[in-house]
Each structure stands twice: as C-alpha cells, then as structure tokens.
C-alpha cells in the first residue's frame, strides 16, 4: 500500500490530467475511519472538490461518472470511499461569491 499523502497527490494528479480542473482540492479523511471494515482493507476515504469546464451541461450523475471513469480501478482498491462536489467554473464563482 502506498503511503497516504502519496495516494492523495496521485489522485489529484490523475484528476488534474483527465479533467483539466480550474480548481481542485483532495482531502484525505482516512484517519476519520480508522478501524472501520473498509479502512482495514487498505482503501482510503477521500473528499473531493473539483471545478471543471468539462462539467458544463452535465447533470450531477454524469459529472460523478466522469470522475469515477478517470479514477478507474482505483475505486474499490486504493479508494474505499469518495465524497465529491463537482462544479462548473460558473457555479464555483457563484458559491465563492455568496459564501460568508
């Protein structure tokens, strides 16, 4: 198994290449799940924020499918769980503007 920080940056690099994001944040939350069955098998828990023009005109399911597709076999092996927010640049601008 790769070490955790390495795994986080590998995910970020893979998604950066596949989806040309204007903004990307990958958080490793594996430590929050230590001891739970999925964690014991070695897969990490990650939280993702990805902003990309590729999501324009796509519904949430299609967007997540793009992310899953880019990660391929990592789902279920290196990645046990992935929570994601997938936004277009316009949606992201909107959110950062209205956020307190």
């Amino acid at each position, binding site marked *: 198994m790769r070490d955790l920080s390495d795994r986080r940056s590998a995910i970020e690099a893979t998604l950066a290449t596949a989806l040309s994001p204007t903004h990307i944040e990958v958080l490793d939350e594996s430590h929050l799940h230590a001891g*739970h*069955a999925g964690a014991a098998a070695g897969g990490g828990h990650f939280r993702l924020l990805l902003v990309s023009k590729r999501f324009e005109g796509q519904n*949430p*399911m299609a967007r*997540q499918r793009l992310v899953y597709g880019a990660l391929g076999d990592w*789902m279920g092996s290196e990645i046990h*769980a*992935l*929570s994601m*927010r997938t936004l277009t640049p316009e949606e992201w601008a909107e959110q950062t503007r209205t956020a307190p």
Partner: protein
Amino acid sequence: MSEDVQSRIDALVNQHTVLVFMKGDRDFPQCGFSAQVVRILDSMLPEYMTVDVLQDQTIRDGIKEYSSWPTIPQLYLDGEFQGGCDIITEMYQSGELQQKLSSKD
C-alpha cells in the same frame, strides 16, 4: 452466473418503488454514507425497501455492474437509478427528491 445476479437485481429494482442498496439496514447502517441516505429517506417515508449488500457478495459486486456506478449506497426510484450519497443529499437539499417522492402518491 453474473447474468443470474443481474436478473435478480433487475427484479428487485422493478418490484420496489423506493429501493436502497446499502451497507447494513435502516436500523443499523454499517457505513456513514448509507446512514445518511437512510436518514434522509426516514425523514420523508414511513416505508421503503433496503438491500444489505454486506449479506450477499454477489449483489455487492453485481449492483456496481448493474448501474455502472462503483460505490454503495445506491438509490432507485421506480426502477431508475438516482445516484449515491452525494447526489441524494443534493437532491434533498434542493427539494427535488421530495418532489419525486410525492409524485408517487
């Protein structure tokens, strides 16, 4: 073998108006994401069907193939795949889920 599982899943999905494939059950979800979907549905529905994928490895693998979606939980309404935890949460927050469920009465 795999075809057999796919037809079992297909039958389940088409027999139940609201169906969740999850880890654990409504009373004892075994994963935070499954727990969240249950919490959302519990707030709106007295009854719905769940399938515990931890009880059946063939279903656990088969459902991912069925929907081409690599994670659990998965919510189905009227036989149609709606998404996983993030999407259901979004649909709930926007009111879309309430709308879809109330149109069933």
